[in-house]
């Protein structure tokens, strides 16, 4: 049943400081809304619970991409269209540009924001595996000041995160140190466009002389929130990519993945496909090595 627009209050303070002041005065009372691709869908279904919404759309302090010599900072309300159109993101963070192209359609990518994707906290979030394998940090801001935490520590449980009620996600930071890494990311969904993933896997790695010298693995839809696959990484680190190593890594992944059955897929399918994606990426990384 469609909701009544008159049932919700929506305000648009002109500045970031005005938003922070509002959140600090009445913590938890106002729900921030950026491009609305999640909250307006809930509204359409009559399931938008927050009564008071504060718009972040159009606040310039939150929509930016800044490239320094060693790192990149992306403002929370940067849209997925912004990310796809940014030459630096495409060149240095190809998996993030690819994830941006997976989000819904062009009309969704023009409104959906990177910060919104993270705060919404879906276990299937498209941008999350890329951010995890790029060692992203999350910068939060409130009237009390700013703080940064690793993105890997941002999600705490299903749809819950480390932000306090008066905090806003301000920016996502990533080091620019992946130029010589292998990159891999694949999403398996019902169809190519407009489909939420059944499972997705991402990796960055340094493979030299057939040895895995560094590897970072992350997945969507294998747990209650997007996760780093630490035990699978441990099974690979320092190893040569042999059939035995691949089998050990598959076993580690199957042991640490905790997917669920839901409307989009089954736990068993997700586990099996995730292990197959892992094998695919290891074989690709090995053959890239051989090819050089």
């Amino acid at each position, binding site marked *: 049943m469609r909701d009544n*627009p008159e049932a919700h*209050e929506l305000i648009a303070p002109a500045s970031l400081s005005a938003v922070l002041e509002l959140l600090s005065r009445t913590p938890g009372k106002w729900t921030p809304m950026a491009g609305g*691709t999640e909250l*307006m869908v809930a509204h*359409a279904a009559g399931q938008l619970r927050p009564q008071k919404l504060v*718009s972040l759309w159009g606040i310039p302090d939150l929509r930016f991409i800044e490239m320094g010599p060693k790192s990149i900072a992306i403002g929370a309300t940067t849209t997925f269209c912004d990310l796809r159109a940014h030459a630096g993101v495409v060149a240095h963070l190809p998996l993030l540009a690819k994830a941006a192209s997976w989000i819904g359609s062009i009309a969704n990518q023009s409104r959906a924001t990177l910060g919104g994707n993270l705060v919404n906290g879906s276990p299937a979030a498209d941008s999350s595996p890329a951010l995890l394998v790029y060692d992203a940090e999350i910068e939060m801001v409130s009237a009390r000041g700013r703080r940064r935490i690793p993105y890997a520590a941002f999600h705490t449980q299903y749809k819950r995160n480390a932000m306090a009620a008066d905090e806003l996600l301000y920016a996502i930071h990533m080091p620019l140190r992946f130029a010589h890494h292998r990159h891999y990311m694949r999403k398996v969904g019902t169809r190519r*466009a407009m489909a939420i993933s059944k499972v997705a896997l991402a990796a960055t790695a340094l493979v030299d002389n057939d040895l895995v010298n560094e590897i970072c693995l992350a997945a969507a839809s294998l747990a209650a929130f997007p996760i780093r696959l630490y035990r699978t990484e441990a099974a690979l680190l320092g190893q040569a990519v042999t059939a035995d190593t691949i089998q050990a890594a598959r076993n580690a992944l199957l042991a640490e993945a905790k997917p669920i059955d839901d409307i989009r897929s089954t736990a068993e399918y997700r586990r099996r496909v995730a292990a197959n994606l892992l094998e695919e990426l290891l074989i690709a990384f090995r053959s890239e090595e051989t090819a050089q």
Partner: protein
Amino acid sequence: MSAGWPTHRFTVNGEGRAVKAPPMKRLLDVLREDLRLTGTKEGCGEGECGSCAVRMDGELVNSCLVPVLQVEGALIQTVEGLAANGELHPLQQAFLHCGGAQCGICTPGMLMAAAQLLARNPHPSLAEIREGLAGNLCRCTGFMRIFESVVVAAANSAEGSTNRRAEQAAHAR
């Protein structure tokens, strides 16, 4: 009732408009009900089908997911704004010529998505056309005639601009 709601000011198809409405009212409803621009259609109402797509500040958006408060100061283009000086837009001509429109519900959104694509990329490949229109669902045509329409419109626009450049060059001489 409406007296208490704030006034939202923005531009639609080149014309400044002011609408009193609840801030959470969807741009789709403001266009159709308050401004009587019923070319923009409602399909799913949840951002999946693209029927309600319009252009906002040079980007394609689903107007069912945009609260009118966020349209403040924006430039909106709807399907009514495609034709200019009594002439159909090259995309509209191509959709007519190629049979790109059947029942017509998806057509305004398809046209706006195609207009967005051609504004960014005047010579799209078939793969780029498919991606540009991936968020617009059509249950009549099977899509092939729509893709063909965009190919033809891109070719005609290019020819048109070449002709115009030739005319301008002739004029200059």
